[in-house]
């Protein structure tokens, strides 16, 4: 196994990457290798798909499978090796179908080699030696670390794009240019690119594609469930039977709410599903009772203490403890061996489990937090915001967004939020917010100082807010009194970072550590071109931001 796709990857003097029999996330070697092989096959599908798209045709099922399959390989999504044996077989069938469609549509078509010609074996035992062909480490040995790292940047950005596009697709939104863009990137990777400029260009093209994908996801979420609005969310339990829904998928949460309507079972959100409470059509369910727990890395304690079933709808899953292994369910792309998977959106079994489990014995004193500051809400008060800046009441905006993680160094984000001066506005999104969103940050100019924009999936909203502010102030985004403090953990954050770069956003503070797949040479390019800066200390970074703005 060799994997360095997430922030917590093993780092040694020899470089970054998990290369033993188990990754830091708990993914074992066999599963990691099978995932690499699946990606290799997806590149093969992309080789044919991109040519099919060029002919004005498409295999929608293949495009959809590609998004889903890429999503299963994100950090903390699917650890079930058997699932990958099945997906590899499905990928081979899909490739054959797309190939046949391409050959039928283009007589005298190119004969494609590489991943397009790969034939997988059937069983796990036979597949294991085959995974060598897809090893990322092999690429580094042949083409050098810089090229390998840039290929990884493209692949990981692509994974993030696919995850966002899948979330939109399950709510009925697709766009031909997204499928074509994904196929193009896979075809590009299949061509074993080694030109540094071409690789950077592709990464930025993916960032641009991702902007459209996030816009599509925003339309999917708001189109299905309404426009987020400021909402006080209860963070303490209510006596009674209970279900906890974690991950990001609003459609699955909706499915659980429907399955438990009128049963007396309360549904709680966990982690990145907190923003669900601000959508009118979700909060209309009276049994969407509140938010429980915090960010993903605390799930072993929080799930063990939760007195009902748990549904994990996307990343981030950690090895389920014996205490709750029989009452945690996976859905969508998620999987763990021996954990029940709900693949058909039928959550009746979860409702049944909730009835059988004890639920909360007592109602705890009510505590709430305020969320729901999506772009419509913030732009609705744009005049107030602009006025507050022009009158000097608000000096600066900090967007502290992104993922949370287990490493103690992430206290930086708590410190940052606490130490940011009172005349600044804090905007946040992603699960990194759990480092500071339960604290009272006060109000400013009639607005809460902490504006919760939503999930990491709502990055589009944050970008639209920034663009609207730059319109209002008649300046570029980089000239706004705005600093982006991005905490990254997995590949969706890579996609968002590429989007920011593609939009020309400079001076992003990136942490808690820089990606292990970016070599010093590549990092230098990113620093030169985009001013990306690693975090230092909260105090120093706040001061630097305010000095730059002043």
């Amino acid at each position, binding site marked *: 196994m060799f994997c360095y796709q997430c922030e917590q990857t*093993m780092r040694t003097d020899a470089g970054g990457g998990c290369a033993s029999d188990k990754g830091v996330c708990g993914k074992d070697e066999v599963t990691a290798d099978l995932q690499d092989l699946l990606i290799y096959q997806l590149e093969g599908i992309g080789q044919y798909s991109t040519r099919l798209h060029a002919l004005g045709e498409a295999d929608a099922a293949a495009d959809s499978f590609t998004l889903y399959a890429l999503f299963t390989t994100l950090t903390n999504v699917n650890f079930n090796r058997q699932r990958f044996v099945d997906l590899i077989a499905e990928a081979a069938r899909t490739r054959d179908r797309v190939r046949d469609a391409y050959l039928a549509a283009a007589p005298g078509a190119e004969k494609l080699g590489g991943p397009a010609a790969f034939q997988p074996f059937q069983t796990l035992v036979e597949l294991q030696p085959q995974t060598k062909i897809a090893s990322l480490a092999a690429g580094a040995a042949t083409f050098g670390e810089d090229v390998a790292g840039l290929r990884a940047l493209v692949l990981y950005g692509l994974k993030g794009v696919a995850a966002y596009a899948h979330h939109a697709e399950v709510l009925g939104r697709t766009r031909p240019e997204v499928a074509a863009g994904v196929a193009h990137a896979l075809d590009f990777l299949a061509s074993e690119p080694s030109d540094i400029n071409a690789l950077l260009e592709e990464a930025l093209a993916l960032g641009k594609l991702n902007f459209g994908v996030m816009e599509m996801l925003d339309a999917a979420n708001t189109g299905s469930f309404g426009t987020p609005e400021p909402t006080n969310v209860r963070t303490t339990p209510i006596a009674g039977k209970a279900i906890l829904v974690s991950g990001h998928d609003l459609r699955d949460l909706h499915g659980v709410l429907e399955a438990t309507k009128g049963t007396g079972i309360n549904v709680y959100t966990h982690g990145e599903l907190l923003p669900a409470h601000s959508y009118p059509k979700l909060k209309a369910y009276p049994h969407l009772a509140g938010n429980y727990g915090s960010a993903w890395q605390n799930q072993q304690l929080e799930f063990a203490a939760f007195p009902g079933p748990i549904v994990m709808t996307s990343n981030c899953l950690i090895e389920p403890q014996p205490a709750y292994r029989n009452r945690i369910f996976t859905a969508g792309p998620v999987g763990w061996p*021996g954990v029940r998977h709900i693949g058909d959106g039928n959550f009746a079994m979860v409702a049944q489990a909730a009835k*059988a489990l004890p639920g909360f014995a007592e109602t705890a004193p009510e505590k709430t937090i305020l969320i729901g500051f999506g772009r419509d809400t913030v732009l609705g008060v744009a005049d107030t915001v602009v006025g507050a800046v022009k009158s000097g009441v608000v000096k600066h905006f900090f967007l502290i967004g992104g993922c949370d993680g287990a490493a103690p160094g992430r206290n930086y984000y708590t410190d940052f939020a606490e130490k940011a001066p009172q005349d600044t506005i804090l905007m946040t999104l992603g699960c990194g917010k759990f480092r500071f969103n339960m604290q009272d940050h006060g109000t400013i100019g009639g607005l809460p100082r902490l504006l919760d924009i939503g999930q990491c999936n709502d990055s589009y909203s944050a970008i639209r807010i920034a663009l609207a502010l730059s319109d209002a102030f008649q300046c570029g985004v980089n000239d706004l009194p705005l600093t982006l403090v991005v905490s990254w953990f997995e590949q969706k954050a890579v996609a968002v970072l590429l989007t920011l770069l593609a939009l020309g956003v400079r001076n992003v503070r990136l942490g808690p550590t820089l990606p292990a797949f970016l070599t010093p040479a590549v990092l230098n390019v990113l620093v030169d071109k985009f001013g990306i800066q690693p975090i230092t200390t909260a105090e120093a970074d706040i001061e630097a931001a305010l000095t730059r703005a002043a």
Partner: protein
Amino acid sequence: MPDSQITLLTRDGARIEVPCASGDTVLDAAAGAGYHLPAMCHQGTCGLCHARVTSGSYEMSGYTESLLPGRDLGDVLLCRCTPEGNVTVQLPCREDQIPRHQIPLRDAVVERIEMVWERAVCLSLRLQPHDELGVAADFAPGQYMELAIPGTGIRRAYSLANLPNWDGLIEFLIRIQPGGQFSAWLTGQARVGDTLTVRGPAGRFVLDEASPRPRCFVGGGCGLAPILSMLRHLAEFQDSQPVHLIFGANQEAELLPESEIAALRAGLPQLTLTLAVMNPGPAWNGFVGTAAAALDASLAPGVTEPDIYVCGPPKMLLAVEEVAARHGLAGRVIAERL
């Protein structure tokens, strides 16, 4: 004898004492005492198991140093922290958040007593509502429970044959032993509606679900109960790894019924089955001999080496372990003694 003592302090002020053997990490020692503290990578790189040692000396090795900026204050990663004598550890969580391995005691009511085949009774019980556990029958396929004969305090351990479920239903396959106390109660006094106390689930005879190898199950008589539960679990999860079941019996009449075989095959189409009979009648044309001999025959050269799950009487376990060792598979045997 423990070599040292670890005192775990929780955020809400609870003190938990845990014995620690020399060389064990705090995480291992706590798990050994039934306290499953959060952990992800187990190699000092993710930072999830961070805590602070407030007294005592310890060794920290092989971890990512940047994870512990407060190293001088006693900050540690529990997966890499080896006590050198007694230590006190401040945990960043409350006591009720620590998953504990406690074996629960519950009431259950008899729902069905049925002779399913020669000298084997299927006993179905329904768990009664419990404050902390509700009515769920939560166990890992392969585990057992202790059943107490009402009014006597006499307990016997039996493996669960069904699957974890939300209806509180637990099923056992019980071999009737002449002169056995539980057998006497079951065949003589037990009635539908009786309440008895059950303690469990317990036991480590469980599936290694992450194993990439084929699975071979070897069972005889009521040793089939935990294996049935495991096979039913694999069927429910649509596992597609190769599965071979070797079922040994003295006579054909002691083999599992055709209907049961058909049900297993319906859920696990890849299942291959060897019925091994020691003393068959003249009409028998299957394998003649012990289950261990059947295993020996199945481990032909060139076959992918399986994990071997075996449940049965001590003599059978010994024979299976011998066969496995001869094929170089001693480390692959997962056994439950009846």
